[in-house]
């Protein structure tokens, strides 16, 4: 079926998507090409390319202890933030599906962090964790949990866990939204039938809810991994990778290399490393999904 007049426009769909292709290739593809070029070049601190130097930048990055440290910390960051987010989001979504008084309000509150800029949330938390005048220390001391104020953000042993916690809280709204969508696709009479057949609640959760939630959990995990791996604002605003480079993840370190330490070549290599990890994680996920399908 085609409209009156223009049947012969086989090119129409391509004309319609052409602007998006051109824009993406220009604004995403070209900078990507630049990154690859910088990674294999000898680059001055002002960004002047002085010549090809093969794997030099790669070797320099591989032997940089801060990089190795940040790489390990990025894995810890991603696993703890994504893991924590998923573990908390499943019960939250299950509860939010139940019909209870004030459900709309509870849902609105849990979704609130989604609407705030991560950079601004980080500022507010920074103030809440302020050693001398912050509400967290004040409350903990009032409750008798802390004897003296804790310098939360001045020590990496406390600063990094705080950042992980904030990472989890801001990832929950999106994850719960996806899971709620998944739960709503499970017909309610299925639970009815299971109950009549004598299934206990934990049995219907384990053998019905979890398997049917599977594809949605997968999507939530992959999108969270991509997002958390690339999450820059929280750590940058709260500690800038410090103190003593001990809260750096790869993306904050690459920003510091690019714009503060004047080492564009190694910075480009770090970009490519992050990209390679994100690509392989996504590919592995796709492969798993194909296999399960």
């Amino acid at each position, binding site marked *: 079926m085609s409209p009156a007049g223009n049947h012969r426009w086989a090119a129409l769909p391509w004309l319609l998507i052409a602007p998006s292709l051109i824009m993406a290739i220009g604004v995403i593809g070209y900078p990507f090409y630049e990154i690859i070029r910088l990674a294999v070049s000898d680059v001055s601190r002002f960004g002047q390319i002085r010549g090809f130097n093969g794997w030099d930048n790669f070797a320099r990055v591989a032997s940089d202890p801060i990089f190795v440290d940040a790489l390990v910390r990025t894995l810890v960051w991603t696993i703890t933030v994504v893991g924590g987010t998923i573990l908390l989001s499943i019960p*939250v979504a299950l509860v939010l599906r139940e019909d209870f008084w004030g459900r709309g309000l509870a849902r609105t509150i849990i979704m609130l962090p989604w*609407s705030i800029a991560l950079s601004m949330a980080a500022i507010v938390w920074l103030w809440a964790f302020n050693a001398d*005048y912050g509400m967290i220390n004040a409350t903990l001391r009032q409750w008798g949990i802390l004897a003296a104020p804790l310098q939360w953000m001045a020590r990496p042993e406390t600063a990094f866990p705080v950042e992980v916690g904030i990472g989890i809280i801001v990832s929950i709204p999106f994850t719960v939204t996806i899971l709620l969508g998944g739960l709503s696709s499970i017909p309610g009479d299925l639970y009815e039938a299971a109950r009549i057949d004598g299934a206990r609640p934990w049995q219907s959760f384990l053998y019905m809810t979890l398997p049917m939630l599977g594809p949605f959990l997968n999507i939530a995990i992959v999108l969270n991994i991509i997002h958390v791996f690339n999450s820059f604002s929280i750590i940058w605003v709260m500690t800038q990778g410090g103190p003593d480079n001990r809260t750096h993840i790869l993306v904050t370190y690459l920003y510091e290399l690019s714009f503060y330490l004047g080492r564009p070549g190694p910075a480009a290599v770090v970009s490519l490393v992050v990209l390679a990890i994100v690509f392989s994680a996504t590919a592995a996920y796709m492969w798993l999904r194909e296999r399960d399908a």
Partner: protein
Amino acid sequence: MKRPLRSALSWAVLSPLILTTLLPFAVMISTALKPHEEVLAYPPTWFPRRIAWENFAEMWTSVGFGQAAYNSVLIAVASTLLALLIAVPAAYAMSRLDMRGKAAYRQFLLITQMLSPILLVLGLFRMAASIPFADGTLADTRTGVIIVYATYHLAFAIWMLASYFTTIPGELEEAAWIDGATRAQAVTRVFLPLALPAIAVTGIVTFVASWNEFTVALTLLRDPSRLTLPLKVVNLVAGRYSVEWNQVMAATLLATLPVAIVFTLLQRYLVTGLTLGAVK
């Protein structure tokens, strides 16, 4: 389980998360309304003895809030419109037209999402700095930021719009064709009016994303008169010895509240859209 018991249990399970979520908002509002001397008093209290409305006026001039808000609005509106202008036709093609390479195009969109701005900051900055614009380059211009934002919104906007568009019955347009309408007429008179809610929701989501964005703006913008709200607020804190926390919180509150309200109201539509996109 009876409803009162279930309600109590549900709230009990959710309460740790709800309290943690509300804490920063409480801190923000409480500090934004405190007079300077109370902010640095120990022990700190939740309720100010006197509501210090002057924080907002003082913050307005010290931050240059008006100019920053103008920059944020300009950048968010322009990047949203540009993204929609490009995404709507593409999403129409994806959901309505037969084309070869649709799967490849979908993959391409996914890949653009993986090349996130933070990974390309150096490349983006170098590209902007190499493109002549007005009397300088595209670096440190709002136009540069608008173009980058719009591009990064495309994949999400096309995905979201296409999944909504497929829910609009194609028979309606076909009926218009039978009545002698051309494709263009059917699109503008029948399809677009039905698609308007979806376009509006997508537009609001991209607006909020632009409004809240930090990394690209931090990289591209330098001149204080061009900075957006998140940059201004972060600059009030970063690398300073004495921070006027009551003004910082007043600025954060004012920058956050309007967007948080709009977002909360639209949440329901967002859930539908995201899950439609997720299972496709």
